[in-house]
């Protein structure tokens, strides 16, 4: 039986999540904004038709949105993450192997399904996801990930296909590949596109028929792999076990500018707290914490400053208190009072690690050993409290209470967390 991979993704996923719980959004243009309500990161077809571009800054489109009745939302990642988990639970009913590629895209292995039954199965999958979660999707099928991704693009652009496109058949595939521009291929960025156009490549079929070896010189092994994948030779298997994390970053833009040291210390401590939670979830530890903070390039005329430093820990740890100590040390090393009367106005800070290892397997320090025996139960108790009573129920004092943080990322137009918070459940009216 031939190999078949399907790529399923949610249509305007974030916007569709909003629509599931608010019937007033049906048929209305909807957009979702990035952190701090910066720019549009998801748009419904109606919003695209108004000319709103991906990544367009909110301040530029605010007037248009008001005029045209576009409903704009802050990112509600809690809701999107939950709806994504639900959709993937449905996918797992249809395929033994599911790779969650991103929050709204998953690859499914359909090799066990008879070739003439795959489209039928994909239609059934779409209908089930729509019924159970309310999310509309499209499915692309092909012998490789690259072709599945392309098939998904075709399913999205040609409404007559009913949301499913199968490129398993070689003749049919060849016909499509002649008609689509090479820029639509997964992994072909702007730089590669320029190189390919210089080589006279226009359609995807042109790229497929190139000699892979010279392409490897111009576009590395990635370009070569794309050619084989377009020929139906699978080079990218499904990644069913997410690779072990090598690094972890917690970075945030502030909702307002930070000028004083105490607030900066609180911000990096809060980021370090978050980092500790993430590391403990994977049983990972780190021996280095990098701390950075900088002013905004948008604040023209203001004094600029950008610093970063790396603090070494005596041994690998995921103890929030040790990470906070390191993060504060990072600020203490780099903090300067402004020489003139105009302070630096910082817009963003973050903590980053790049050397994660499994804590159990990490070497213990000879000198300055951290007390793991005491810290582990304390951290476990803190995590359990936050799981049971909601995020931020217990925080180290250094990080400040979530509600009192003046610099937290803004989500001013966020919808309720309909599916995870008892206090924010949607309401059904029993009113005549």
């Amino acid at each position, binding site marked *: 039986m031939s190999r078949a991979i399907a790529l399923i993704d949610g249509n305007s996923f974030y916007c569709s999540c909003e629509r599931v719980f608010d*019937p*007033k959004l*049906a048929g209305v243009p909807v957009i979702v904004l990035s952190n701090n309500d910066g720019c549009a990161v998801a748009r419904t077809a109606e919003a695209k038709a108004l000319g709103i571009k991906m990544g367009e800054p909110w301040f530029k489109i605010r007037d248009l949105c008001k005029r045209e009745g576009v409903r704009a939302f802050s*990112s509600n*990642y*809690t809701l*999107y*993450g*939950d709806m*994504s*988990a*639900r*959709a*993937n*639970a*449905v996918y797992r009913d249809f395929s033994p192997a599911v*790779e*969650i*590629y*991103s*929050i709204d*895209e998953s690859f499914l292995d359909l090799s066990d399904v008879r070739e003439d039954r795959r489209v039928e199965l994909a239609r059934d999958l779409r209908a089930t996801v729509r*019924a*159970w*979660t*309310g999310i509309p999707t499209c499915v692309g099928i092909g012998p490789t990930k690259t072709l599945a991704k392309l098939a998904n693009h075709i399913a999205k652009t040609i409404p007559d296909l009913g949301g499913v496109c199968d490129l398993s058949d070689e003749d049919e595939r060849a016909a499509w590949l002649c008609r689509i521009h090479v820029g639509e291929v997964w992994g072909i960025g702007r730089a590669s596109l320029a190189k390919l156009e210089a080589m006279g490549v226009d359609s995807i079929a042109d790229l497929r028929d190139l000699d892979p070896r010279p392409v490897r010189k111009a576009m590395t092994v990635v370009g070569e792999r794309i050619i084989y994948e377009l020929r139906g030779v699978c080079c990218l298997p499904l*990644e069913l076990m*997410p*690779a072990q994390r090598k690094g972890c970053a*917690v970075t945030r833009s502030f909702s307002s500018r930070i000028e004083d040291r105490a607030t900066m210390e609180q911000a990096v401590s809060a980021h370090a707290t*978050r980092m500790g939670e*993430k590391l403990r979830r994977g049983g990972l530890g780190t021996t280095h914490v990098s701390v950075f903070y900088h002013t905004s390039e948008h604040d023209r005329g203001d004094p600029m400053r950008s610093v970063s430093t790396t603090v070494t820990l005596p041994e690998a740890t995921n103890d929030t208190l040790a990470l906070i100590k390191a993060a504060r040390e990072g600020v203490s090393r780099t903090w300067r009072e402004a020489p003139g009367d105009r302070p630096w106005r910082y817009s963003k800070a973050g903590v980053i690690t790049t050397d994660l290892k499994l804590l159990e397997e990490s070497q213990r320090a000879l000198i300055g050993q951290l007390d793991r025996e005491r810290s582990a139960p304390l951290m476990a108790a803190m995590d359990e409290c936050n*799981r*049971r*009573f*909601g*995020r931020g129920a217990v925080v180290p004092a250094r990080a400040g209470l979530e509600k009192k943080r003046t610099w937290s990322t803004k989500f001013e137009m966020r919808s309720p*967390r*309909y*599916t*995870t*918070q*008892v*206090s924010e*459940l*949607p*309401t*059904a*009216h*029993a*009113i*005549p």
Partner: protein
Amino acid sequence: MKVRQIVELCAEGDSTVRVPILGPALCAGFPSPADDFLEGSLELPRWLAPNPPATFAWNISGDSMRDAGIFDRDLAVVDRSLKAAHRSVVVAAIDGQMSIKRFLVDGNVARLSFENPDLPAFAVEETGEAEIWGVVRFSIRWHIARAGLVR
């Protein structure tokens, strides 16, 4: 405080599932932006909610379903994998508003109806203007309003 009550209602253990199942939500390709925002999900035992990905909880506001035993401020648990049949209680979008109604099928005609004798009989919508969101599997009443904690 309400959160705590829910936790106490269900025994922790093998019989407890989370709604939804938040499996290892790690993405192989792009790191999920939701990674920082995952929260404890609402938990329901499997025998009450056999299909977690399709199960959602709703607050009820109003008394038009009184005779169905559903009252103001109750909680309705909706299973979107169930198909509405004659006499199902459903959550439906009617004229841009989410409502809870009794679904009635009479020959070829489907209707959404109140269940409150105080309301006029003509207060019934044709399903032509409505879309069923999901079927109510069960509802929950809070009886603890005036109960204190025994110590």
